[in-house]
C-alpha cells in the first residue's frame, strides 16, 4: 500500500534515502575507503591445512624485513580461560572467538589465521608473511556433518562434550549440543495418519557473499585509547568484542561506522579489528587491513550445511497429524550452528498437534559458521516445505490448499512453546492463490512450486537521538548501521510524527560516543526497534515544541495542539494566535528555554513475527540438467511497509540469494580439506542474466506492539526459495531433489536415474 492511501503523509511512500546521493556519486566512504596519515598495511597468514597442531611459529625472519613494523601471533593475545568464556549480556563465547581470531594450539580449518604482519606497504607485508615459519603436525580432518558425528571421527576439541543429553557423556565429541522442541505425541499422531512421507535432505555450506570484503583502520594510542573505523553490522558489537578479547575497557575504545557493503549476518562478529589494534599497539602506528575475496571465503563465517530427516503425516482430508524433524547442522570449527532456530521455525507455519524437532550442533574443519539471514530457518524449510509438497501430492491436494487447511493463525501453539499472536500467514496464502502467476500456463519441462517460511524477527537494545536544529531542520542519530536503507525509514517515521516535509529530516549513523549501546543490525530489527525509539524521541520533541508555543502564547500546553508541523491553539477558548511552525519555534529556542533534543534508549521487545509465501516457475533442460527460473513471486506480511521500495528490495534480494542457494552456491572442499572455490568465479552467486524480474506482494497485518505496525522484513524472503525451486523442479520433471545445491550435474544424474 503506497502513501496517503493508508491515511499517513509519509509512511508507505517511496522517499529518496538521505544517504543516496553519496552512494550514486562514489562519495560514500565504505570500510576500505578510509585512511590515516602514516598508516601501515596489515596482512594475515592463514593455515593451508584443515586440521593441524601448531608445533612452532618462528617470525624472526619476517621481523627483520625492512619496512616490517610489527608481527603478532596468538601469543600476543590474552588467553581467555573457560571460566571467563562468556561475560557481559548476550555475549559470544570469547574463548572460541579468540581462538578463531588467531589459532592457538591447533589450526581447525583451511584459512584459519595463525599470524599477522604490519608493514609500510602491501608488497612488503606479503613478502614478510612468506617468511613466517610454521611447523604443523597435520591431523586427520572432517568437513562433512555426518562424518563428524561418527564415533571414529577425528575430534576437533578434546574438551567438547555433547550438551543437552543425560547423563553427561564421558567421551569428547564433535557434537556440541542436542536440542529438542516438542508438543503432543508424534507417535500417536503418526498412528492417526493415513499418509506419511519421510525423506532425508542435505544442504551444503554457503557464504553470505556480501560484495564488500571486511576492512578496518585501527589506531591504538600510547594511552591505550583506541579508535577504530570499520564496516560492520554493529560498531557497538565491535567495541564490545575488542574490549573482551584484548582485556580493554569499553570506555577506551571508540568505533566509527563506515558505510557497510553488505553483511546479511556475516558482519556480526570480528575478524580483523582486534588484530589491527594489536598491530597498532605494537607498531605505534595506525593499521589498515582489508581482506582479499579469497580470505573472505576461507576465513569468514559461512552458514551451516546440514543433513536432515523430515517426516510428516496427515489424514486423507489433509489434516496434518504429526511432524518430526531431525536436523544435523555443522557449525564449522567452533560450536554455534543455528540448529535450534531451524527447529523452532520449521513447522511454525502449520497448526500441528504433534511436533518433534531434534537438532544437533556439530563442529567440523570449516570456518566458524556465523549468522546468515534468518539463521537456520531456510535450511529447515528446504526439507520441511519439500515434505509438505510431497505430502500434498500424495494426498492429491493442491500444495497451496494443503497449506491453507493447516495454516498457523493467532492462537496456534508453536512447537517451541508459545502460541502465536496476530500474524498474517493465511493472508499470504490468500494473496498467492489470487496472484496471476498461479494461472500462467506452463509448457513442457516447466513446473510451478510453492513454499512458505516463518521468522520471529528481533528487537533488542536500541538508542537514538532526535535534535531540532536552529533552522527547524531535524537530525535523527541512530546507533545501528544502515545496511539497506534504514536511514530512509527512520526519516519517514520521524517526518510522520513531526508532520514536516521529509527533506527537513536527516538521519545519520552515530559512532559509539554519539548514542548509548545498540544491538547490532540483524534479525530484521532496525526499522522496528530503532524506529520505536526514534518515534518515542520525536513524540517527546513534539511535546516540548507545544510547550514552547504555550510559553510564547502564555497559555497552558494542553491548549496547544500540533498539526502538520505547526503549533496551533486547540480550539476557540485557547485564544487567537497565529500558528507557530517548527521553524518559528526553533529560531526562538534561546528565549524559550534552550535547545530541543531528545535521546532515547530502550530494550525494544515484542517484535512482530512474520510469514512469507513464494511462487516459483522453472524450466528444466532434460539433456543438461540446467534449471531456468522463469517467473518468481514473493508474498510477505511486512506488518506495515514504511518505505515500500526498500521492503520490495529486501524481498527481491532475499529471493535472489535463495535461488543461488538452491541452484549453484556451495563450498567445495577437496580430499585434503582445502577450499577449492574461494572466489566469485567458482562460488557462483546469481548474476543479472540468471534471474527474471521478481514480483512482490506486500501484505500488511500491523504488528500490535509497534506504533506504525512494523514487522521485520529482511530475513523471511530467504526462507522459502530453496524449497520453492525444488518443488517447481518436481512439478516440471517428476523428480524430488533432496540435495542442495541442485546444480546441473546433480539434476542430470537424477534425471538419468529417474528414467
Amino acid at each position, binding site marked *: 500500500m503506497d502513501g496517503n492511501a493508508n491515511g499517513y503523509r509519509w509512511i508507505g511512500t517511496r522517499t529518496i534515502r538521505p544517504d543516496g546521493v553519496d552512494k550514486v556519486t562514489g562519495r560514500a566512504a565504505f570500510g576500505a575507503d578510509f585512511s590515516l596519515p602514516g598508516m601501515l598495511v596489515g596482512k594475515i597468514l592463514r593455515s593451508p591445512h584443515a586440521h593441524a597442531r601448531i608445533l612452532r611459529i618462528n617470525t624472526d625472519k619476517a621481523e627483520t624485513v625492512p619496512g616490517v613494523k610489527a608481527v603478532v601471533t596468538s601469543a600476543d593475545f590474552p588467553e581467555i580461560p573457560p571460566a571467563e568464556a562468556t561475560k557481559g549480556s548476550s555475549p559470544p563465547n570469547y574463548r572460541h572467538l579468540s581462538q578463531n581470531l588467531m589459532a592457538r594450539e591447533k589450526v581447525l580449518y583451511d584459512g584459519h589465521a595463525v599470524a599477522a604482519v604490519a608493514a609500510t606497504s602491501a608488497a612488503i607485508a606479503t613478502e614478510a608473511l612468506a617468511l613466517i615459519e610454521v611447523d604443523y603436525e597435520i591431523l586427520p580432518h572432517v568437513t562433512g556433518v555426518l562424518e563428524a558425528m561418527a564415533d571414529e571421527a577425528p575430534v576437533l576439541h578434546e574438551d567438547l562434550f555433547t550438551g543437552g543429553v543425560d547423563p553427561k557423556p564421558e567421551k569428547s565429541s564433535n557434537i556440541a549440543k542436542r536440542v529438542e*522442541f516438542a508438543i503432543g505425541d508424534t507417535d500417536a499422531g503418526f498412528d492417526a495418519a493415513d499418509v506419511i512421507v519421510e525423506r532425508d535432505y542435505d544442504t551444503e555450506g554457503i557464504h553470505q557473499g556480501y560484495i564488500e570484503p571486511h576492512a578496518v583502520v585501527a589506531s591504538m594510542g600510547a594511552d591505550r585509547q583506541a579508535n577504530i573505523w570499520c564496516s560492520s553490522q554493529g560498531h557497538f558489537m565491535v567495541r564490545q568484542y575488542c574490549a573482551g578479547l584484548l582485556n580493554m575497557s569499553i570506555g577506551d575504545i571508540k568505533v566509527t561506522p563506515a558505510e557497510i557493503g553488505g553483511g546479511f549476518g556475516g558482519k556480526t562478529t570480528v575478524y580483523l579489528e582486534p588484530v589491527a589494534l594489536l598491530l597498532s599497539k605494537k607498531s605505534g602506528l595506525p593499521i589498515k587491513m582489508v581482506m582479499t575475496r579469497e580470505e573472505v571465503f576461507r576465513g569468514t563465517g559461512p552458514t551451516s550445511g546440514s543433513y536432515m530427516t523430515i517426516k510428516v503425516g496427515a489424514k486423507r482430508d489433509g489434516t496434518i497429524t504429526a511432524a518430526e524433524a531431525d536436523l544435523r547442522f555443522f557449525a564449522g570449527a567452533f560450536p554455534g550452528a543455528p540448529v535450534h532456530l531451524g527447529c523452532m521455525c520449521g513447522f511454525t507455519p502449520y497448526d500441528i498437534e504433534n511436533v518433534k524437532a531434534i537438532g544437533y550442533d556439530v563442529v567440523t574443519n570449516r570456518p566458524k559458521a556465523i549468522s546468515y539471514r534468518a539463521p537456520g530457518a531456510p535450511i529447515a524449510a528446504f526439507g520441511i516445505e519439500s515434505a509438505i509438497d510431497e505430502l500434498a501430492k500424495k494426498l492429491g491436494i493442491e500444495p497451496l490448499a494443503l497449506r491453507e487447511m493447516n495454516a498457523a493463525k493467532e492462537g496456534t501453539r508453536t512447537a517451541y512453546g*508459545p502460541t502465536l499472536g496476530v500474524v498474517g500467514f493465511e493472508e499470504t496464502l490468500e494473496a498467492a492463490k489470487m496472484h496471476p502467476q498461479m494461472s500462467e500456463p506452463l509448457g513442457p519441462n516447466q513446473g510451478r512450486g510453492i513454499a512458505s517460511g516463518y521468522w520471529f524477527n528481533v528487537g533488542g537494545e536500541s538508542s537514538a537521538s532526535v535534535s531540532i536544529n536552529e533552522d527547524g531542520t531535524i537530525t535523527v542519530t541512530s546507533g545501528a548501521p544502515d545496511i539497506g536503507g534504514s536511514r530512509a525509514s527512520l526519516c519517514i517515521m520521524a517526518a510522520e510524527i513531526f508532520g514536516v516535509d521529509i527533506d527537513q529530516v536527516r538521519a545519520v549513523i552515530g559512532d559509539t560516543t554519539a548514542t548509548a549501546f545498540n544491538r547490532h543490525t*540483524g*534479525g530484521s530489527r532496525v526499522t522496528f526497534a530503532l524506529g520505536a525509539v526514534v518515534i518515542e524521541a520525536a513524540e517527546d520533541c513534539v511535546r516540548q515544541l507545544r510547550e514552547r508555543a504555550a510559553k510564547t502564547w502564555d497559555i497552558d500546553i494542553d491548549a496547544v495542539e500540533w498539526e502538520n508541523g505547526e503549533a496551533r491553539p486547540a480550539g476557540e477558548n485557547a485564544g487567537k494566535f497565529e500558528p507557530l511552525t517548527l521553524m518559528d519555534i526553533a529560531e526562538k529556542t534561546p528565549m524559550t528555554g534552550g535547545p530541543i533534543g531528545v535521546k532515547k534508549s530502550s530494550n525494544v521487545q*515484542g517484535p512482530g513475527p512474520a510469514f512469507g509465501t513464494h511462487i516459483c516457475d522453472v524450466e528444466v533442460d532434460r539433456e543438461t540438467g540446467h534449471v531456468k527460473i522463469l517467473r518468481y513471486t514473493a508474498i510477505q506480511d511486512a506488518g506495515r511497509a514504511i518505505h515500500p521500495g526498500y521492503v520490495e528490495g529486501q524481498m527481491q534480494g532475499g529471493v535472489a540469494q535463495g535461488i543461488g542457494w538452491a541452484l549453484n552456491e556451495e563450498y567445495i572442499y577437496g580430499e585434503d580439506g582445502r577450499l577449492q572455490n574461494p572466489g566469485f568465479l567458482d562460488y557462483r552467486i546469481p548474476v543479472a542474466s540468471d534471474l527474471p524480474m521478481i514480483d512482490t506482494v506486500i501484505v500488511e497485518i500491523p504488528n500490535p506492539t509497534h506504533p506504525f505496525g512494523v514487522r521485520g522484513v529482511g530475513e523471511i524472503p530467504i526462507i522459502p526459495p530453496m524449497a520453492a525451486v525444488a518443488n517447481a523442479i518436481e512439478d516440471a520433471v517428476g523428480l524430488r531433489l533432496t540435495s542442495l545445491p541442485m546444480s546441473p550435474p546433480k539434476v542430470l544424474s537424477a534425471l538419468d536415474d529417474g528414467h
Partner: protein
Amino acid sequence: MTDVVLSREIARKFTGGETRIVVEAGTMRAIVRQLDEKFPGLKSILGEGMAVAIDGTIFQDFFLEEVGPDAEVCFLPAIEGG
C-alpha cells in the same frame, strides 16, 4: 495464577517431566524466583541465553516484565538474527 511452559529438556532435568507449572502472577523476576523455590537450580538456566514469550509476544530480556493473571509464559532460547 500464571501458566509457565517449560521445554521437555528443562522439564526432564528439573521438574520430573512436568512442562506446565502454575505460579503466582507478578514480574518475571518473581516468577523465576518461585520456579527456583519449587525446583531448586532451575533459576540457573532461565537467565543467560533464554528468552520468554508472554502470551505469544517474545521478550529477549525479560526479568522486569509484568505478567498478568491468566497469562501464559513460555521459556525459549534467545534468538539471534542475520
